């Protein structure tokens, strides 16, 4: 047996093992990928348009976009003032009200209606801050949807949306 042989044999084993491992990884990929949202789910997640006309002052309506509840609130003057007068620096998740609404459309609050704690749907017009109260674990949000008290770590998220006209928004 010559001295070169063991090396050649080792190389063959390593090459075979490596190619086998690459194959196994390639086979694993479709099996992982199939659990991601399928094409019909993604297509159904396209932007939606919502007519704001019928939403009265003080009312909060719920629509669904990408299977998530979207709160659309028509805020009263009092609610807007409450949201604007508080100093954002004192809040757990500091954010001014102006960063949570579209300029010139202060009265319209659009939120993803999912508590940032563990995913329950908060109740509108409840809690000590006149905003939203999550019945699951007691998180309290104000009239801008910002977290004020309770276990939730962050403000209610604002979905991507834009005003198509003064009374119509496109979410997504």
């Amino acid at each position, binding site marked *: 047996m010559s001295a070169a042989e063991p090396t050649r044999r080792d190389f063959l084993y390593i090459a*075979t093992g490596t190619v086998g491992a*690459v194959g196994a990884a390639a086979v694993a990929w*479709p*099996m992982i990928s*199939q659990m991601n949202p*399928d*094409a*019909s789910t993604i*297509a159904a997640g*396209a932007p939606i348009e919502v007519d704001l006309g019928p939403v009265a002052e003080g009312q909060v309506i719920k629509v669904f976009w990408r299977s998530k509840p979207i709160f659309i609130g028509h805020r009263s003057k009092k609610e807007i003032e409450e949201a604007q007068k508080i100093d954002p620096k004192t809040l757990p998740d500091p954010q001014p009200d102006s960063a949570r609404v579209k300029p010139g459309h202060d009265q319209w609050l659009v939120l993803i209606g999912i508590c940032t704690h563990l995913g329950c749907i908060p109740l509108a017009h409840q809690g000590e801050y006149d905003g939203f109260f999550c019945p699951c674990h007691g998180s309290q949000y104000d009239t801008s949807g910002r977290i004020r008290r309770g276990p939730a770590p962050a403000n209610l998220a604002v979905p991507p949306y834009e005003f198509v006209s003064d009374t119509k928004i496109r979410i997504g």
Partner: protein
Amino acid sequence: MSGPSTYQPNNAFLKWFEARLPLGGLIHSSFVVYPTPRNLNYWWTFGAILSFMLGAQIVTGIILTMHYTPHVDMAFNSVEHIMRDVNYGWLLRYLHSNGASMFFVAVYIHMFRGLYYGSYKEPREVLWILGVIIYLLMMATGFLGYTLPWGQMSFWGATVITNFFSAIPLVGESIVTWLWGGYAVGNPTLQRFFSLHYLLPFVIAGVVVLHVWALHVVGQNNPVGIDPKSGQDTVPFTPHATIKDGFMVALFCLFFAWFVFYIPNYLGHADNYTQANPGVTPAHIVPEWYYLPFYAILRAIPNKLAGVIAMFGSILILAFLPWLDTSRVKSATFRPLYKQFFWVFVLVCLGLGYLGSRPAEGGYVIAARILTAYYFIHFLIVLPLLGLIETPRPLPNSISESVLKKAAVLLAIGIGAASLLVMTPSAFAQGHDTPHPPRNKWSFAGGFGKFDEAQLQRGFKVYKEVCQNCHGLSLLSFRNLADPGGPGFTPAQVQTIAADYKIQDGPNDQGEMFERNGRPADRFPPPTTWKNEAQARALYNGTVPPDMSVLAKARSYERGFPWFLLDALPFLQYQEHGVDYIVALLKGYKDKPPEGVTIPQGGYYNEYFPGHSIAMPPPLTDGRVDYTDGSPATVDQYARDVAAFMMWTAEPHLEARKRIGFQVMIFLLIFAGLMYFTKKKVWRDVHAH
């Protein structure tokens, strides 16, 4: 050479664990040092291939379950959803459906190997009977699984097979009703079949454990059929058998991948791409290829009860084989007479398989009766007598290597026989008196075929301007028109196309349904000329215009022997039966039926339509659709364009399938080559002795 005590882990944790649960020792003694006869040929690798296939079927099956809905109204569409929308869903489903066939290819080779080398004989009787039980469980699982897509063959296969039990005197009907959970195959049947289809593979896995256990108690048989006498006659399982099995698994995957990526519907039935219809039985009911020999036995016997008994008996008789074969010599190598009868028996089984795929009429029935009789004669007369009259050749004193050369010859014969067994014809959508549709040239045919975007766009135009008034396209969404590997419309064009359609939506805030313009995510709306099937029947001479989504895969025609065998081979493969039939049909109208043929009121004569009387008036006339790309505005061109479009709607991931298939084939060739050389290195020292 082996024994549980030889496993001595060095690692402190493994030592601690081994003292409490000797799992490492069990694996070590079963799959590492386990002594395996050194003269095993490649036929002995099919046990490992079967284990691999069982694992593959369980994994792909669990994944399909994540997307499948076992309900009569949704099952068919949920399978199509897997084929169209789920990421790699087409791949996973084709792996699973073709995997079932591959499983049976492997098990038949495994069984015939056992028959040839007498692997069922003392002391391996229990091992063999466990194998027969696994085979029965596999047949049950395969049958239950074939029901799940809820196509025409699913439904009628389920009806025919469950009706076997109605042959039982007195209680038969009650048993069948109990199996169905109703008065016919229906939703309760589908749901319990789904449940059992999920359960049985794990039962199989359990019996496989017993099978392997029994194997390791008595040791493997070998081509010479005499027990290893010393350590010289055996090699450790790892690495020798492991690497040899691995090499054959790689080769088997190559065979498997050919079916999955290039001829995925070859072993299926076109009729199963038509949703189950309890009111119409397909013209020609055929089970999956792996049941065909038993189906032939069933039909050969003109009495219902006797036929069912013969069919089950033909399988159960295998369990008695250890006592029916009276010869003490195991391997056919040393049994000159048995060897001949073995090959006759193989041919009889293949013959029965072929006859099972033929209509039960005329000479086919007579042939099936002769072969059925021989099948039982082989077990009940030939085998018991052979042991008494045959003079075996002298057995060698110990396991010799000369058998290996013989194995190479057998491998070649066996692959030929196995491929013959695999290649049984698909179901045929047509009667016998219709001519074969002429073959067309298709851009998407062959190993590297791609759709012609311009042709698909023209075909869509024909659909839109001619077909869609009566024919739905319910499985297609507008967004699909912009998918890669399709007609290549831009997303903006798709928006415009979708907006042309009215989609019913609602209810709105007032509780009213309303119409709006289509969006890319919407499915194509149903035809506007009929509201429901009853209305369609009233309008169209008792027929319902079929949905066009998977029609190109739901139509086929009989190719006949030997063409259907050639259709499965690389470079000759033919999967375009459906589109060729559609083109022939669209061009097959004749103003006057030939002499002696009368067409009933409301029917039109069509040369290629089964029965020749079709309710659809000739849909295409020259110049009916304006082509803007300069293609001829002729019936011939329209027919080919709309057929190509239908091929795409039926198989939207065809291009991705062929592309990934090429990558997989290249990979497997490289891997199998590396495995071969690794195997040679590992075995060099053994062969040098």
